[in-house]
C-alpha cells in the first residue's frame, strides 16, 4: 500500500509523463493560483516584509554558523527537561530508534503528525516492515496514504487530487483501515473534512504512541515547535503516552526570542495566513499534561554534507513553507512527483543534490529542472538564492563528468567552441561555415535540442564580414 520515491526516473522522463496528464495540470494550476493570491495579500500588508526576511535569514544563518554549539546546548536543555535525546547519522539509525521505542512499549500502531523528515527517512515503510502501522493524520497525508499515492507538495501533499478523486479514495479505502466513510459522502470539502475527523478520532483516542517532526527546535530552552492547521498535530502531541520527534539538525533556532521572525514569516509564506490555526510548543515532559515519555532524534542524513558546501549551505535555512513551489512555472506544470523526492519544486532541485551528493542520474537531473527565472528567490521568506545554488550544482554535475570516456554532446560542443573562439582565423573559418553547419545540424544530431526550441537561421553575413564591408556605417 505504501509507495516510495526509490527508483524514480530522471526529471525529463518523469516530467514528460506528468505533462501528458491534463487532470493533474488542471488541479495544479487551480491550486497554485489560489495559494499565490492568498500569500500575496497577507505579505503585502506587512510594511517591512523585506526587513523581516532579512531577520529570518539572519536567525537561520546564526543557527547554522554555530551549529555544533547550538546542538550541544539543545541536547543539554532537552535532557534537563526530561526528554531523551538520540543522534542518528542516517535514515536507518533514525528509524531504528523509533522502532525500538515502539517495541519497548509493545505498540502495533503509531499516529503521525505531518512531517517532511519522517518521509525523507521512509519511516512508515520501516515501521510497517516491523508490523507497526503508522497512521498519517494530516488530511492531505491521509488522502495520499489511503490512495497508495506519493506526496507532490510540501504543504499540501495531495495538491494533485481534486475533490471528486478524494471522495472516491475515502469511499473505497477508509473502511479497510478503520471507520468507514459515510454512505452519503459528497465531494464538498467540508463533508470530506468531517469524514476525516470521524475516521481519525478513534485512532487519536486509542493511540499510545505518536511520531512527529518539528518546525523549530530552540537550543537555549529545549523547546520543540510544531506549526499546523487542523489540530491533528495537537492530538498527536497531547493524547498519547509516548512521543518521538525526529528533528533534522538544521531545525535549531539559537534562542527563544529569535522565533519571532520565523513564526511571522512561515504562515504568511506557506498557507497565506497571518498565523496558522495552531502552534504547539513543548519542552521535554510536563508532569500531568501530555506525553510522559518524550524522545527527540537529532538527524544528520546528509545535512552536514550540505553544510560543508559554501554556496549550498544556505539551503539549510529552508523552513519548508513551499512558497517557491507555488510560484515556480516549472512546478506548476509538472507537479511534484516528477522531482522524484519528498522535497519537490525549486527547493527540492537544490536540497536533494546537496543532501545526497551528485553522481546519480536522477539527482543530477534536478538542477536542470529550472529556467533560472528567479521567482523562487523572490518568494523565499529566508532569502535562499535558489538560482545561484542551481547554477553552482550544475557546475558540480558537469565536473562529475570531466573524466568520462565518452563525453556528453554539450562537453564536445563547449570544447570545440573554446578551440574556435581562441584564434581569430579559426573563428573566421567557422563563421563562413555557420550556414552549412546549421543546415547539417537541423538534419542531424541537434534534434533533441530542437524538439523543444527553435534553431535560428544562420545570418547571410557575419558581424565581422559586415564590419569589413561597411566600416561600421549603417549608410555606406
Amino acid at each position: 500500500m505504501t509507495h516510495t520515491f526509490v527508483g524514480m526516473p530522471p526529471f525529463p522522463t518523469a516530467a514528460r509523463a506528468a505533462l501528458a496528464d491534463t487532470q493533474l495540470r488542471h488541479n495544479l494550476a487551480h491550486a497554485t493560483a489560489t495559494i499565490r493570491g492568498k500569500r500575496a495579500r497577507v505579505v503585502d500588508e506587512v510594511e517591512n516584509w523585506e526587513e523581516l526576511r532579512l531577520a529570518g535569514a539572519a536567525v537561520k544563518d546564526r543557527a547554522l554558523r554555530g551549529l555544533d554549539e547550538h546542538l550541544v546546548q539543545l541536547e543539554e536543555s532537552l535532557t534537563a527537561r526530561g526528554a531523551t535525546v538520540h543522534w542518528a547519522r542516517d535514515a536507518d539509525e533514525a528509524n531504528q530508534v523509533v522502532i525500538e521505542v515502539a517495541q519497548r512499549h509493545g505498540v502495533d500502531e503509531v499516529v503521525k503528525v505531518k512531517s517532511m523528515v519522517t518521509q525523507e527517512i521512509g519511516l512508515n515503510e520501516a515501521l510497517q516492515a516491523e508490523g507497526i502501522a503508522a497512521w498519517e493524520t494530516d488530511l492531505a497525508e491521509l488522502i495520499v496514504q489511503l490512495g497508495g499515492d506519493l506526496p507532490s507538495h510540501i504543504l499540501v501533499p495531495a495538491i494533485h487530487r481534486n475533490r471528486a478523486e478524494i471522495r472516491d479514495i475515502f469511499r473505497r479505502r477508509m473502511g479497510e483501515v478503520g471507520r468507514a466513510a459515510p454512505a452519503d459522502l459528497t465531494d464538498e470539502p467540508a463533508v470530506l473534512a468531517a469524514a476525516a475527523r470521524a475516521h481519525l478520532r478513534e485512532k487519536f483516542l486509542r493511540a499510545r504512541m505518536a511520531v512527529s517532526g518539528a518546525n523549530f527546535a530552540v537550543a537555549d530552552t529545549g523547546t520543540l515547535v510544531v506549526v499546523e492547521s487542523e489540530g491533528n498535530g495537537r492530538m498527536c502531541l497531547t493524547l498519547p503516552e509516548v512521543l518521538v520527534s525526529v528533528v533534522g539538525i538544521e531545525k535549531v533556532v539559537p534562542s527563544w526570542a529569535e522565533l519571532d521572525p520565523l513564526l511571522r514569516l512561515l504562515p504568511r509564506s506557506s498557507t497565506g495566513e497571518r498565523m496558522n490555526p495552531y502552534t504547539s510548543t513543548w519542552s521535554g515532559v510536563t508532569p500531568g499534561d501530555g506525553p510522559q515519555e518524550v524522545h527527540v532524534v537529532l538527524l544528520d542524513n546528509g545535512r552536514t554534507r550540505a553544510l560543508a558546501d559554501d554556496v549550498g549551505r544556505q539551503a539549510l535555512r529552508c523552513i519548508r513553507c513551499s512558497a517557491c513551489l507555488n510560484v515556480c512555472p516549472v512546478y506548476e506544470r509538472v507537479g511534484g512527483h516528477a522531482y522524484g523526492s519528498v522535497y519537490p519544486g525549486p527547493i527540492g532541485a537544490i536540497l536533494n543534490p546537496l543532501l545526497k551528493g551528485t553522481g546519480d542520474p536522477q539527482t543530477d537531473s534536478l538542477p536542470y529542472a529550472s529556467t533560472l527565472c528567479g521567482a523562487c528567490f523572490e518568494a523565499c521568506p529566508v532569502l535562499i538564492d535558489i538560482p545561484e545554488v542551481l547554477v553552482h550544482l550544475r557546475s558540480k554535475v558537469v565536473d562529475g563528468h570531466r573524466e568520462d570516456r565518452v563525453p556528453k554532446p554539450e562537453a564536445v560542443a563547449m570544447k570545440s567552441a573554446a578551440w574556435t573562439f581562441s584564434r581569430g582565423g579559426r573563428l573566421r573559418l567557422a563563421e563562413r561555415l555557420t550556414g552549412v553547419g546549421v543546415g547539417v545540424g537541423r538534419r542531424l544530431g541537434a534534434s533533441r535540442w530542437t524538439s523543444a526550441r527553435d534553431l535560428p537561421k544562420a545570418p547571410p553575413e557575419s558581424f565581422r564580414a559586415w564590419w569589413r564591408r561597411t566600416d561600421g556605417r549603417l549608410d555606406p
Partner: protein
Amino acid sequence: MSARDDILGRVRSALAAVEPDPAPVTAPPGTRVADLVAHFAERVADYRATVVHCAAGDVAGTVAAALPAGARVVVPPGLPDDLRSALADVIVDDGLSADALDAMDAVVTCCRVAIAETGTIVLDHAPDQGRRAVTLVPDRHVCVVRADQVVADVADALAVLDPGRPLTWISGPSATSDIELDRVEGVHGPRVLHVIVVGEAG
C-alpha cells in the same frame, strides 16, 4: 565513534572556515496600532471565530450565553470563581480520560496572552486554562481574554511567555485547506472558537 560525536565532528569540519555569529538577531517590530484590543478582535473575527465584548461585571452572563442549552461543559480546575459560578452544571477536569473528554460539548477557559497583529490567543495551560487535552477534544472552546492581556505582536508575546511550559497558540478554529486549497473550518480541534474580550478597549 558514537553517532553524536560523528555528527558533531562532521559539523565542525564543515564549519572549519566559518566564524560563529554570537549576537542574537532582533526582527523589526510589527505594525503599531492605536487600539490593540479592537485590532485583536477584528483579526480573530477574520478567522471566522465568534468574538464578543463585555464589561468585567457581565462576564459570567456572557460566558453562559456562549454555551448552547444542554451542552455538557468541562472547565479547568483553576477557572476563576466568578466564571465558575455562572455555569450551573459543569464538570471540573480532574484528569478525565480522552474518551470522557470526547463526550463533552464545550470547554471554558482563560488564556495567558493574546496577540493583536495576528489575532492569536496563547494558552500556557496554567490552572485557569487546564491541561492541553481539555481545550482540544471538546468541539467548542469558549475563551475569556482580558483586555490587558492583549499585546501588539509576536515578539511581545514571546517576551511574556515561559517556554518551560507547554504552549498552545490558537488563531481561529481548526481549519484545513488540503482539498483544492479551499479553506474549511473545523477538522480535529474545536470547530467553534468563541472569544470573549473583557474590559475596556484601548
